[in-house]
């Protein structure tokens, strides 16, 4: 249940916010130094970072629950125990990957 609705919510978030940020980033890049600086300044602000971290998590979560849906499309993993473990693993995986990625990106370890 939870994994399924989260799949939709993260999908909608990636569709609207994710693609908007991607398009803005490309436009900013194509516009030259000034527009790119404006983008990186917004992206580097606190709110910008929160949005980007949220998008990273949404991407990984949608990716993992998407794989779960693909597996279930084949008729597999419908048993309650396996199904629940798989659902929990999608959350564990997405949170861990997001944390690792931003740990590296923000240079927390350095």
């Amino acid at each position, binding site marked *: 249940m939870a994994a399924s609705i989260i799949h939709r919510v993260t999908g*909608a978030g*990636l569709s609207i916010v994710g*693609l908007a940020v*991607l398009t803005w980033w490309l*436009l900013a890049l194509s516009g030259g130094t000034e527009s790119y600086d404006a983008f990186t300044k917004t992206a580097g602000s606190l709110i910008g970072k929160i949005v980007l971290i949220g998008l990273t998590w949404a991407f990984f979560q949608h990716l993992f629950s*998407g794989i779960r849906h693909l597996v279930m499309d084949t008729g597999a993993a419908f048993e309650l125990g396996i199904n629940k473990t798989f659902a929990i693993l999608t959350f564990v995986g997405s949170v861990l990957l997001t944390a690792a990625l931003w740990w*590296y990106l923000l240079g927390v370890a350095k």
Partner: protein
Amino acid sequence: MSIGQSATPLGKVRGLGSAREGGEHWLTERVTSIALLLLGTWFIASLLILPSHDIRTVLEWLHAPSGAVPMALLIVIGFKHALDGMKVVVDDYVHDEGNRFACNLVLLFLAVGGGALALFALARIAFGANA
């Protein structure tokens, strides 16, 4: 022949479901999802591998075919997958037929328009002289 009298199981379910159609849509959604699994991973890995995120480095990356081509695919397939997915959400939650048609029309225009905008920006980068 009305629903329920069809000879085959497939004939019995055709036209049902909130979208009234959609075998192809369902399959496309899955095929694009697998493509995006690869392209999305490529995109994130590339951003991480880039030595710096200053404009020169990023432009150089997207100027080369090895950057521009997967990026173009990511844009086209990403917007297509987003459109297909959002259509499922609209079809499931917007029950009035007129509103549903309007929502899907807005979605289609947004996806095509947004995709075109992103592709145009990428083309400027890929074919531009400034990298």
